């Protein structure tokens, strides 16, 4: 990567310890977020996207625990920070917005009280200045009659409005990094577009870097500069967004492109990836995707490939792109002709 990174996640591991078993929700995740850019994290439900994001801010609750890795933010490993130092990062330099706007605001405090809180903690603003700033922020995120809204409770607002409030809250202290965990999944389509547009505008205005977690490849195409594709707690492909769409290389990425709905292009039909995501206790020893991969060989079933650099800032975790590959040397993982027309 030629440019400066604001966030470098290296071999991050987060596990849940339930009834003596270790569920490796995040199993060695590595990615970079270039400064001022947007990194998309895509993958099926349960692939560890949310847990990765929460691990960055160390918001993992028991029985979950970060068991290894590094999270470098502006060059410093956040995992070495004390609890108090970490609190100074949260909501200040790194903010997060969540999937569920309906339940992510505290029902018994007003919108104003909830926005003021971060301003008080990180900027020391008193009630009066805090309220002024809250009104300003609500205006910024496009909420009508903001002065009235600050005294309202969350139940008085629609889902889209609440997500705007969440964004206003996250932006209160001008964070350098915004982590958005499926910010539009719970909203209806027209509102989705507005919220994404808003995040994009604010990013341009404040020069924020963004981690955009999503299911929707359309969202990726519209908002992201780089993409990390996750499968079973691991990153399987990392590339810039153009390369990923034009020339996806990992068999799982190709499967995703064919199976996930996209809001940006017409799709003839969706071709689901055969099989299902393996349950935590039956995780394959070799490549996690081998049971579902049309190209899997004996090597794939036996050994886990590494996430290797394949040039031009791209990284892929697949045996096909290594010298050890024991299958068809001419294998064509992605064929634009075939995937868009045949079944």
């Amino acid at each position: 990567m030629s440019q400066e990174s604001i966030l470098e996640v290296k071999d991050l591991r987060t596990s849940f310890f339930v009834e003596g078993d270790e569920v490796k929700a995040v199993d060695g995740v590595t990615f970079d977020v270039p400064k001022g850019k947007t990194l998309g994290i895509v993958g099926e439900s349960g692939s560890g996207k949310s847990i990765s994001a929460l691990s960055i801010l160390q918001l993992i609750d028991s029985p979950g625990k970060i068991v290894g890795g590094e999270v470098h933010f502006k060059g410093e490993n956040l995992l070495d920070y004390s609890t108090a130092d970490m609190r100074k990062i949260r909501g200040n330099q790194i903010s997060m917005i969540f999937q569920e706007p309906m339940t992510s605001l505290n029902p018994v405090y007003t919108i104003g009280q909830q926005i003021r809180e971060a301003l008080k903690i990180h900027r020391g603003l008193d009630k009066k200045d805090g309220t002024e700033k809250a009104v300003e922020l609500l205006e910024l995120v496009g909420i009508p009659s903001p002065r009235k809204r600050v005294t309202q409770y969350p139940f008085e607002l629609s889902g889209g409005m609440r997500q705007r409030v969440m964004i206003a809250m996250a932006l209160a202290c001008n964070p350098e990094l915004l982590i958005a965990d499926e910010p539009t999944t719970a909203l209806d389509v027209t509102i989705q577009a507005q919220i994404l547009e808003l995040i994009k505008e604010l990013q341009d205005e404040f020069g924020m870097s963004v981690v955009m977690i999503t299911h929707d490849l359309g969202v990726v195409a519209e908002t992201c500069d780089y993409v990390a594709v996750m499968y079973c707690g691991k990153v399987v492909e990392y590339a810039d967004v153009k390369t990923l769409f034009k020339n996806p290389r990992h068999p799982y990425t190709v499967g995703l492109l064919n199976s996930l709905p996209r809001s940006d292009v017409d799709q003839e039909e969706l071709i689901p990836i055969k099989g299902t995501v393996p349950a935590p206790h039956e995780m394959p020893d070799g490549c996690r995707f081998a049971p579902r991969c049309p190209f899997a060989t004996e090597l794939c079933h036996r050994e886990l490939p590494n996430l290797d650099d394949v040039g031009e800032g791209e990284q892929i975790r697949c045996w096909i792109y290594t010298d050890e590959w024991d299958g068809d040397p001419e294998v064509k993982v992605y064929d634009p002709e075939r995937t868009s027309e045949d079944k």
Partner: protein
Amino acid sequence: MTVYIIRRLIQLIPVLLGVTILVFLLMHLTPGNPAQLMAGENAPPETVERIEDRLGLNDPLPVQYFDYITGVVQGDLGTSMRYNTPVIDEVGDRFWVTMELAIYATLLSIFLGLIAGIISAVRQYSVSDVTIMIIALFGLSMPNFWLGLMLMQWFAINLGWFPPTGWGSPSQVLLPVITLGTAGAAIIARMTRSSMLEVISQDYIRTARAKGVKERIVVYKHALKNALIPVVTVVGLQFGSLLAGAVLTEEVFAINGMGRLLVDSIMNRDFPVVQACILIISVVFVVVNLLVDISYRFLNKRIDLNE
């Protein structure tokens, strides 16, 4: 808000009327003749009949009830059959004694219950959590009078730290208040624990943490206020059993409260006093529950106060 309170107060009228009818019927239809008790067991039937006439006991029941309720509406609770004094004088101070006992016990149970419940929830499955929950289970299962007798035996008689009976000085107040407040504390502790555990896993708690809020403030500001909503309801319901418990506690510690007066008056078929006591207790109960309702609505912003 004012409209809501006024409407709730108006709704209380039929409830209280119902209570008076029920108690009135209960007293008059159960066996036992106050006139006979007053005259003595060997009194000649004429004497008994004269007393019955004087007390109006021979009038038809509806007439008796009507006389009674007209008096009540005018603020006259009647005359004690046994002492021949106005009921209001009999109840007077004793009402305040019982109120003091009930209020102290409620405050104690809220205070202990909340602290224990919060500690339990925040340190789920820890030694303190398990210990608190075992103690709470005991607190719930111990009959009130038994706990009272045990406390009296140990702390008043064996150790001599407190006077065994009476009411007034702080040392006299402590044992009865613990006796009466324990069950409530146990219930509130359990309720607070489960309510806190549920709230702590909510999305908005994660939002608060993501803002950089200190853990202490996450618990006491963001979680507790939400967790209190169901707890407040329990406090209101609990107040009913508390009043019942007060009767037993007063018996055990020989406290001259309304509970003892009520028991004595039932024994002696002193109808007006019984009716007055129950009416007063009912009023207290419904008023407390109204207060609980108002605070519930105050905590839970999703409820419109004018509904």
